């Protein structure tokens, strides 16, 4: 299955949910925000968000900035 994560196409394994994907990247405990096909998904909804072929996912966090 091909999905796009942070602008990069990945040949991903089949994920049961967004929570599954985040766990596989060891990001489930990090202070991040996830956008799934341009919709922001709050953490409590990660497990009920299905991942499908062609999905566009952005994962962002805070960094220093002016």
């Amino acid at each position: 299955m091909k999905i796009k994560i942070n602008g990069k196409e990945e040949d991903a394994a089949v994920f049961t949910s967004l929570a599954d994907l985040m766990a596989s990247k060891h990001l489930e405990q990090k202070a991040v925000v996830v956008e799934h096909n341009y919709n922001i998904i709050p953490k409590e909804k990660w497990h009920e968000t299905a991942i499908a072929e062609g999905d566009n996912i952005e994962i962002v966090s805070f960094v220093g900035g002016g």
Partner: protein
Amino acid sequence: MEDCLNIADKSLSNRLFIGTGKFPDKRIVKDVIRASGCEVVTVALRRVDEDSEEENILDYIPENCTVMINTSGARNADEAIRIARLGKAMGCGNWIKIEVISDNKYLLPDNMETLKATEVLAKEGFFVFAYMNPDLVIARQLAKAGAAAVMPLGSPIGSNRGLKTEELVRIIVNEIAIPVIVDAGLGRPSDAAACMEMGCDAVLVNTAIATASNPVKEAEAFNLAVKAGRLHHLLGSIKTMPHAKASSPLTGFLRDIK
């Protein structure tokens, strides 16, 4: 009575805002914030890099500081709006500095796209701080669109060249009712003081402090300069003269009296 800056949903007693970019070591940020006395700090959003163990900048920002998220990286209004919403979802409030930049050499803001993003985000309840080229017409439109403040640049971001836009910023300060915060390019404490003397409501400094030989001491210097400039502004301007006016008695002595 204490001189407070009433801005967005806050009343601030310190008029220096600090940016948290470019610090060689994040651990110093806490001490810089303390030395600067600042109550507002800016942060940015970036895509997570799975391979790097980057620390969360928020760990170094005291809880009593207001976090303002910038939309750096946005090239148009739509991207700025998207970044603003992502930032809000991070749970740090709704102060957003709109920064829309399509020019990579001078990093000058796109005023038209900034105005478009401001119109949308102000309606959504964000407190919008608009980083802008100092233009009175746009500043008026930003105020009308519901911006909490305008942030005209002093000179290009990170250039440390000071308040090169002085005359244009002065016009905005004189004509606009919402707070004016000079952002970008201030290189020395005297630049910050000049902004405050002129009547700006606050200044935002990042590079000059983050890249100083001693960022903590430089933060303190900027804090003092902002306070000095503000105090002078409140006292009113001084008279200038085309000729000298003696400060010491000039009655001749050690000379013969005729």
